[in-house]
């Protein structure tokens, strides 16, 4: 971290100009973020205590905690919370776990390593809408590629396809989501693996340590902080994820893929009930905040582990 310390003899001027200079630099950006993210957040908080409807968002009446009471006594919402929990846990551990395995795989020597490392970013870079489009065709219950492949192995797909059945929709969505998520963890861990001391790896091998032992004693201590950071990041992103589920199932069939953000959007823009939607959103945000606060308390994750070098 290279940040300047104030010059002691001339307290009103830092080495790069007067005291007000940094504020001039950051004021436009901060004002912009406040305007488009923080003001709406407070507005959202207010809407969650009103009965605002989509037709006239500003005209809601104050109704206290009514929206909150209603969503928490709603069985559908309890199911939504459970689905969100499953979704987030699978996303987080699945993405980081697969990412770790793939990074270890790509870290070894094999022909075409550089190309492989570039190609693996494809799922992460591809636009979500395009992925939803091709995947929905691949999952088509009659002519889809996956349906044909599964059929070849004698597995019969539900008539409307895997996304059209309440028991297979969530696992299918999760599989596609993990495909989208794992590359990020893989390439971040791949760069973390570069700082594992090779002498230590060699020495452990010489002592007769198997691959698992080498991983535990030489690799893991180095990459552990990065794994911690990735777990937190993936959790924050998993709670936010909207696009793929919305495009493929709209939260269905019969609510089996209805996560918190899907519930939020659907209440707002399908049921026109902005007040209740806002309350759902606030619940999601509080869960997110509690999780991050908790994990930074427990894990003490070093945030700035990998500066640009």
């Amino acid at each position: 971290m290279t940040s300047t310390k104030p010059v002691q003899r001339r307290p009103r001027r830092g080495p790069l100009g007067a005291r007000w200079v940094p504020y001039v630099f950051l004021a436009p950006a901060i004002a912009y973020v406040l305007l488009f993210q923080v003001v709406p957040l407070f507005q959202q908080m207010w809407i969650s205590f009103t009965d605002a409807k989509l037709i006239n968002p500003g005209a809601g009446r104050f109704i206290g905690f009514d929206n909150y009471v209603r969503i928490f006594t709603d069985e559908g919402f309890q199911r939504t919370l459970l689905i969100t929990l499953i979704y987030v846990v699978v996303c987080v551990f699945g993405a980081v776990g697969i990412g770790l395995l793939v990074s270890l795989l790509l870290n070894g020597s094999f022909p075409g390593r550089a190309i492989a490392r570039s190609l693996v970013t494809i799922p992460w870079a591809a636009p979500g809408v395009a992925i939803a489009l091709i995947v929905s065709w691949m999952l088509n219950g009659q002519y889809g590629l996956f349906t044909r492949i599964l059929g070849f192995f004698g597995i019969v797909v539900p008539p409307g396809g895997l996304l059209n059945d309440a028991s297979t929709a969530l696992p299918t969505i999760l599989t596609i989501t993990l495909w989208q998520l794992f590359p990020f963890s893989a390439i971040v861990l791949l760069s973390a693996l570069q700082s594992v001391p090779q002498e230590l790896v060699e020495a452990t091998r010489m002592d007769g340590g198997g691959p698992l032992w080498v991983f535990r004693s030489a690799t893991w201590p180095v990459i552990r902080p990065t794994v911690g950071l990735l777990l937190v990041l993936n959790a924050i992103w998993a709670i936010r994820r909207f696009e793929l589920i919305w495009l493929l199932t709209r939260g269905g069939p019969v609510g089996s893929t209805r996560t918190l953000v899907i519930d939020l959007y659907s209440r707002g823009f399908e049921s026109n009930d902005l007040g209740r939607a806002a309350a759902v959103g606030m619940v999601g945000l509080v869960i997110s905040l509690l999780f991050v606060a908790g994990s930074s308390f427990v894990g003490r994750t070093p945030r700035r582990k990998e500066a640009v070098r």
Partner: protein
Amino acid sequence: MNRRYSPGVTVRTVVVLIVLGIVVLPLYWMFVTATTRKADMFGDTAQWWPDLTHLDAFQNVLSNGQVPIWIFNSLLVATGTTLISVMLAVPLGYALSRYKFRGRGSVQLLLLLTQMLPEALLVIPIFAIFKSLGLLNSQLGLILIDAALVLPIVALIIKGAIDGIPIEIEEAARTDGANPFRILWGIILPLIGPTVAAGAVIAFFSGWNEYLFAVTFTIDASVQPASVGLAGFIGELTTPLDSVMAVALMYTLPAIAFYFFTQRYVVAGVTAGGVKG
């Protein structure tokens, strides 16, 4: 030791090929579908390979009136998003990197907090604001919100790059009487060119890819970007699929191509700031 040419390498190579196959499969299938004749598409067996004699779909979609409009709107939104976010992010990143000031911690906390706000949560209040400002159903509205969403990550990537530049360069310029704005513009900016380019790529494709605000805020086909247009084809089979997939491919490939070049900076910036790319 014979590790280098052991069977281990062969096994590893095979596993890598399987992983890459899974990674590339949807994109490959997009291409195959785009080159498949309708008669073969709904047959009893799949057509497994692209039919390079049937590239009509790519020509057809470009002469279709709506596709160029979608692409144009996506380009417009993405370009606007890039201009606003990079212009605001460079000075912010510079201030965070080079200055200690009151409220610095709060600013960083604010940037972290923005990463935890689901877009689906912001969409309701911003819908209300845009409705009163008349910004619904316009590309400008999408530009304004997309730039706000991507600004923090671009700023953190740029901050990371400035952190890596020795401060002595600036101190010398300062002694020569250059003011901070000249220093940023004339000295720092040229030095962090590649990172600014990477930030621009991230901003561009976050605008290019964005769907939630676009589908909620735009109604007329004349202002809708390609993400909304393409999403309309999901799960429907009446529009010729080869044309749909040809458009999807044109929409997807630029994003992938640019990310190949910038992934290094994205990874560095994201892990440095703990923020989404």
